Structure formats: structure tokens, C-alpha cells
């Protein structure tokens, strides 16, 4: 059974500003019981970016542009711009990379 934000929605998209403030997100993200999870996702976006930058250095991969973390019943995707993460997409369904990429730019939640 889905927990947290995914208990209320199958898919949500967060747009972040340069200071990691939420510029745009569906209402479910702002519910009191979901705000901690939203903050955790924003922290996670920076946390995993540090590892990606290490991997990039070790394996000469170039700058990271996005990452998807897939778990049972949950897939979290982060897109990175000049100021770090600027998009977060959270879904119950495990999506292909093509769908993840298009989801970053979809309007609404």
C-alpha cells in the first residue's frame, strides 16, 4: 500500500527554485502530514547529487543531468540544472526513462 504523498496521488511533480524553495507543486505536497516527506525529497536530491558528482569524477562521466531512484512501489526522479535540483517527479509506477524525461516538463502535478 502506498504511503505518504503517494497515498493521495499516483504522480506528483515539484518545481524548485535556486534556493530549493518549492515554486510549483500539487496541493497534496503542502498537506501538513506530507511536508516532512517533501523536505526529505528535496534533501535527497542534493544528497544523491553529491554521490553522482563523485561517480562523475571517478568514471569521467561529465556533469549529471538527472537521476531516477526506483524502489518497491515508488520511483523518484530528480533533474539538475545550474543551481542543483530544479525538478522532482515522484510516481507509484515505475516508468521508462523516456517517460521520466517528459514528466519533468509536464504542466501541473
Amino acid at each position, binding site marked *: 500500500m502506498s504511503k505518504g504523498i503517494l497515498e493521495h496521488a499516483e504522480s506528483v511533480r515539484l518545481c524548485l527554485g535556486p534556493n530549493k524553495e518549492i515554486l510549483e507543486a500539487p496541493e497534496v505536497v503542502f498537506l501538513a502530514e506530507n511536508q516532512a516527506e517533501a523536505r526529505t525529497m528535496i534533501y535527497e536530491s542534493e*544528497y*544523491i547529487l553529491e*554521490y*553522482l558528482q*563523485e*561517480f*562523475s569524477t*571517478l*568514471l*569521467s*562521466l*561529465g*556533469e*549529471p*543531468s*538527472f*537521476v*531516477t*531512484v*526506483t*524502489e*518497491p512501489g515508488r520511483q523518484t526522479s530528480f533533474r539538475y540544472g545550474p543551481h542543483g535540483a530544479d525538478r522532482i517527479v515522484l510516481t507509484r*509506477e*515505475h*516508468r*521508462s*526513462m*523516456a517517460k521520466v524525461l517528459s514528466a519533468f516538463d509536464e504542466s501541473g502535478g
Partner: protein
Amino acid sequence: MSPVVEEQAALESRLGDIFTELYSQPGVSGSCLQVGRTVVRHDMPFSDQRMQDFGARLDHLIASYQGVERSVWQICAAFKKYWLLVLCRGEMRLSLLLTPEADTAAITSRGTYLLMQVEVQPVESPAAAAQPAAQAQTNGKHPPIRRADIEACLGTLLSRVVGLSQGRRLIAREVQRLGYGEHLTEFQARHLGQKVLDYIPNRSKREILTSEFLHSLES
């Protein structure tokens, strides 16, 4: 030959087959297999020490998720030059360098399935060491699985691509054809799932749902 040496030889043989299979997929440019933080085998164009450093950092990342009770199956990251696909199963991590044109869904499915074939079995006896992984799992390592639970899982996955009633018919057809009982071994559950999901015509979707099903057996 001692059981340990036999087991090691069998593991080496399986690893060779796995990497051959993976490199038959277009776009696979490099690979690294590790258990925990230890790199077992790699063919990246970097020193062993650098790859050990990579393996240690990757394991640290995965462990940090596990520390908050999050079981990561897969991490896929796009970089300027390559994509890095990391598949996790237990303590095993398979990292693949892919070109951007690679079919990540197909490679994920293949990599996950092949990773499941390499179970680092403890050597309990010469007979146990000689058994293939799938058969060993039927020897009391995993409790029987209710067929109804597998059917429910498959029904949920199929509902994303076909109607409910059609999905149920597909499942019922395969259950009848295979003649499985009310309780399944893990091998039977996996076999049933793969046979049902083979009906999905869209290859990319089929690969994704197959990976998800195989992982869900472990959950």
C-alpha cells in the same frame, strides 16, 4: 577439487555468461559487479583501485537508503557522456555504463534477471554447491507462495496496459496451461509471471513490468 573451488569455478563461469549476455545488448559500454563494497569483476577502463573506490562509494549510497528502510532496486543517472545504470539485488550491485541511445528498459530487465541467476550461495555441501540457483531456492530457502497473491500482483501490473477482464483471462490461461497448484515455489512464481507478461506486445513496457514483478517477489 574442493567444494569451495568448485563453487568459485561455477561462479566464474556464470559471471562470464552474464557479461557476454549483457554486452549483446546495444549500448552497454562498461560494467562493474560488486558484492557489498567489494568489486568482484569489472571491465571499465580504469584501475582496479579506482573501481574499488567507486564500489565503496556506491555501496555507501545504497547502504544509506537501507539505513532508512528504503530498498533501492535501481538507480539510473544520466551524465553528459554516459548513463550509469545501477541494479541492486541483496548485497549485489551491477553497474553498467550505457550510451544515451541504449534501451535502458531492455538492459534493466536483462541485467536484473541475470543478476538473479548469480546467487552467491554459501557452500553447505557438495550437493548444494552443484545445484543451480533456481533449484536451490526451492529447497526450503523460501516459503511457498500463494498462487492467488501472484495472480493479484500480475493483475495489478497488467491493468496498466490491458483491461481488468482481459488481464484476468491471460492469467487464467497461463495458470491452466502450466497446471500449477495453489502454492508455488519462487521458481514457479517467477515462471508464471514471465509467461503472463510475455503477452504484453510493447517491448519497453513488457521489460519494465517484468523487472517490477521480479523485484516484487523479493518484497
